[in-house]
């Protein structure tokens, strides 16, 4: 490193004289250093992301004991199973409904917080973000305890209000509802924070101008807030779709896929097949089914982020 310091000292002063070959050498040296600085990152991405991804494709084409190449056999097997289609359905239902409600609650709470006097906003924001800060596995444990059928907090409350207790996690449909509820609880604060930041970036003059024109609050929301936030809403929704679709913690802890495999998602199902049952190739094949869906979402996010980067400048 010491010699680069020296060369810097000598090259920079005659940069003004900018001879092309010297300039080239200067650039080449600079880019070599830059490449070396990126090397650890590149190694991590190649060894621990790209290699596993291709290895996963190879692995998914082997038989259970990984001794024989069976082509698309694992994929064909999965497609022929009813449970697999249940997983597809449940993952889709879970992701779409959870993201919808997270975005809705996030949008509502962001507006509510934004309505408050500026002094109190920090306190409310801090309080409402707590679900996002607790590690999901641990808060899910807390929810599981609240859903407990006999001494659960929810059923006690329901009974004392004169309703019947609900079999939260033992009835397949209630179990589906419960895992979605926990995900909404966990993820809505993230949307709140993103939308609140976006709301703050909308120029105040636009609202003032609209007020002078006699616009109602609803009209301001439709014609100013939504268009100004469109990009950030798209990014957060797509990002959340990926994370929610690939969610593992909630289902694994609360139901482990049950009752009757009705709550299995791609992640928990491939965990069951690959790790619990020891059929790594089949598990790899299951999780690979997520790839196209996540890939499409990723491309759109990238487009949105780039666009937003240009807007901000």
């Amino acid at each position: 490193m010491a010699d680069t310091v020296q060369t810097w000292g000598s090259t920079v002063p005659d940069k003004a004289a900018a001879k092309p070959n010297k300039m080239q050498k200067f650039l080449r040296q600079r880019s070599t250093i830059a490449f070396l600085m990126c090397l650890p990152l590149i190694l991590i991405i190649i060894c621990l992301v790209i290699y596993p991804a291709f290895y996963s494709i190879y692995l998914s084409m082997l038989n259970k004991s990984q001794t024989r190449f069976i082509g698309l056999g694992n994929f064909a097997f999965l497609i022929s199973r009813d449970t697999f289609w249940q997983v597809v359905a449940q993952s889709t239902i879970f992701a779409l409904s959870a993201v919808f409600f997270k975005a809705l609650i996030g949008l509502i709470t962001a507006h509510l917080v934004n309505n408050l006097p500026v002094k109190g906003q920090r306190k409310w924001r801090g309080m409402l973000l707590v679900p996002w800060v607790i590690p999901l596995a641990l808060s899910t444990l807390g929810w599981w305890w609240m859903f407990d059928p006999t001494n659960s907090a929810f059923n006690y409350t329901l009974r004392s209000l004169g309703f019947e207790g609900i079999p939260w996690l033992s009835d397949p449909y209630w179990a589906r509802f419960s895992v979605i509820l926990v995900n909404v609880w966990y993820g809505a604060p993230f949307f709140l924070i993103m939308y609140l930041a976006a709301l703050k970036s909308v120029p105040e003059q636009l609202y003032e101008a609209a007020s002078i024109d006699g616009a109602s609050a609803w009209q301001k929301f439709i014609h100013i807030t939504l268009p100004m936030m469109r990009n950030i809403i798209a990014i957060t929704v797509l990002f959340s779709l990926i994370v929610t679709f690939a969610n593992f913690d909630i289902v694994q802890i609360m139901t482990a896929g049950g009752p009757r495999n009705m709550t299995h998602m791609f992640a928990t199902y491939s965990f069951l097949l690959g790790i619990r049952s020891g059929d790594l190739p089949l598990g790899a094949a299951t999780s690979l089914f997520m790839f196209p869906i996540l890939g499409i979402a990723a491309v759109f996010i990238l487009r949105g982020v780039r666009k937003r980067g240009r807007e901000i400048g």
Partner: protein
Amino acid sequence: MSTITASVPATKPMRTGASLRRSRRWALFASYFFLILFAIFFLAPPYYMVVTALKTDGEMAKLATNPWFIYDGVTLDQFRILLYNTDFLIFFKNTIIVTVCVVAITMVVSVLAAFALGRMRFWGSSILATGIFLTYLVPDTLLFIPMFQIVKSIGLLNSYWGMVLVYPTLTVPFCTWIMIGYFQSIPKELDEAALIDGAGHMQMLFKIFIPVALPGIIAAMIFAFTVSWAAFVYPMAFLYSSDQQVLTVGTVTSLIRGDVYKWGMLMAGALLAAAPPLVIYAFLMDYYIAGLTAGATKG
């Protein structure tokens, strides 16, 4: 349109003053009302965890009293059982080791790479930046099965050092991404001045970029910390003996023995395990939120 806008101030100038103030007050009141409802929804689970952790086993078994409140007195028994009779402290120690290593690795790798990508353009640098963002979008549940095989072949299965190896895939891309944004926001004049004074790349990084971008570095560190503290899929798949286990999985699996769930102790464990991220959040909330929102706005 222009006729409407012109007529509005003319027709109701008398009304707007008072009614606007009244409607503002109503809006504020409604905001508080609904925010309280949402706060109850968001804070009920942590509240209930605290209440459960402070109850005696006797009160919980009786099923007679309202479970949302404590009637038989507050006790720290659950925490005592947790700390003395279980492997909880081993999990805690393992998690600290893993998290400290992962945060250190993440910061070195991502600050170096972000400095190079944010300031020095080189062949393929924009492709690399895009690639980093795309790897950030790869969820851990997509690759944990091939990872299992890879970690096994290196001989790190059932060892927390395996976590130190694989967690950076979750933290490095995002940290690099937000650091690129922070570094790019530093005015070019600063490094030109440093170049004229004869500073090398490393001097520039340590004397200018790191101090100026310190808020970004803290935000990235908090992100790396929370991610590796909360990671669940990898330890669930790769660790199985309790001397190697980390907090998240250890609390959820190892503390549950047999059919009798010691809920008080479980909740005490969950609370203690969630405490470090919560404490950091309480003290460094602005950095935490900056890191959270930077992903979509910077870059």
